[in-house]
């Protein structure tokens, strides 16, 4: 009886290991890109989203102006639910909650502040804040909606520079 149970357990464990192994491994994050993103985050994002990505206080309820405060970027937030393409688009173009009681963008646009590569860098940094299962969820979402190709360019073409850098 004991040997039968042991055999069953071994078969179950084998199946579990096989099933786990069948899952594609998560691609590692580029440490240099994540480090660059951390620095950009500290300068451009932390004032609203918090130094550690903790979000604004009471971020889940509209504030007195009828706007949604900046959400956290860590495990407790929802940034990890968005594909790379969507995160890129929101950072570049901004987004306005249609139920905002003001005309302001809920998330400001950073098209004129960050290059495509820098935008990718800051999103790469955000990925370091997530749990492994959240990373996997986001990676699966991004397979169909990846970063646009211009984010792969490490050198910045002249016409791709933010306006304030033109003429430097």
């Amino acid at each position, binding site marked *: 009886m004991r040997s039968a149970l042991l055999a069953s357990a071994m078969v179950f464990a084998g199946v579990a290991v096989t099933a786990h192994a069948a899952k594609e491994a998560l691609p590692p994050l580029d440490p240099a890109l994540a480090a660059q993103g951390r620095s950009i985050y500290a300068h451009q994002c932390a004032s609203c989203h918090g130094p550690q990505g903790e979000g604004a206080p009471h971020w*889940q309820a509209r504030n007195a102006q009828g706007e949604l405060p900046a*959400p956290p970027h860590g495990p407790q937030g*929802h940034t990890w*639910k*968005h594909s790379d393409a*969507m995160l890129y688009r*929101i950072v570049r173009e901004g*987004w*306005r*909650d*249609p*139920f905002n009681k003001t005309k302001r963008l809920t998330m400001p646009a950073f098209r004129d502040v960050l290059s495509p590569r820098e935008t990718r860098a800051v999103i790469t940094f955000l990925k370091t804040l997530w749990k492994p299962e959240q990373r996997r*969820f986001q990676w*699966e979402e991004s397979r169909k909606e990846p970063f646009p190709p211009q984010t792969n360019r490490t050198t910045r073409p002249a016409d791709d520079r933010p306006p304030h850098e033109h003429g430097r």
Partner: protein
Amino acid sequence: MRAVRHLRSVVFDKRIALLLLLGPFAVFGAVMVNTKDRAPPQILALAVGGDGTTLLEMRADKLYRRAAADGAWAQVPLPRAVAPSRITAIAAVAKSSDVLYLAGQGLGVWRSDNGGRDWEARNDGLPSREAIAVTAHADRPETVYAYLAGNGIFRSEDAGKHWKQMDGGPRAALTQFVHSNMPGSMQSGWLFAATRTGVARSMDCFCGWYDAGGLNAKVHAVAYAPNQPQRVYAATEKGLFVSVNGGEEWRRAQAPAGSVTALAVARSGTVYAASGSKLFRSTDGGQTWERVDA
């Protein structure tokens, strides 16, 4: 020979006697059965077909389809392996009048690609078969959402072949929901959910559920108008309500009957509402109603 004739006569006499004795009860019983058959069963769910005009109606344990062209009802076959009385939700797919989904507790999710002639269980990746609600994406034919009791909302982007958990759903348990292509979403649309405490709304990136307006009432059904996506209807325990700004504010609408339990809106904006066994239609946004097939 005479013995045989005698025996036949005895049997015949007994049959006549039996008929005379039980006849009135038999006739009465037949009337009872017919009356029962004709008693109109409750309408449990409504949906508008993917072409935007075909109405689907789950009435007790039968599914019916009504083509706008001729207005005639036709019964849609249901999967044999399913107890029809357990079906609580139906959905039709965008841009196709043949693709249907049904769901129910203990059944999971089923899909038909040919208007109900054949059905297939689509439950791979779902943790249970306790499906409460199902809704199809307003624009993407392969995307469908299911809500499972105790597990939350799951999304499939390949017609139900694989599912992925998106979130736990609204705070209050969801009884029915609908995907809407109302503009303004970060992703591709919105989900409106009927819950025990009101209508809940989330973008379809599942970035969080928020109360849509302050209905503060149990909601039986929610639907949106495809021709004016900001226009949302909610059938509640306090009556029928309509919003023209995506559920942000609600005003009371004229209800066709005491309690509306199912809603659907055609592409033209015609609103269908079920109350018990009665089906109503409004072509002026819920101001006036007429019985369908009265």
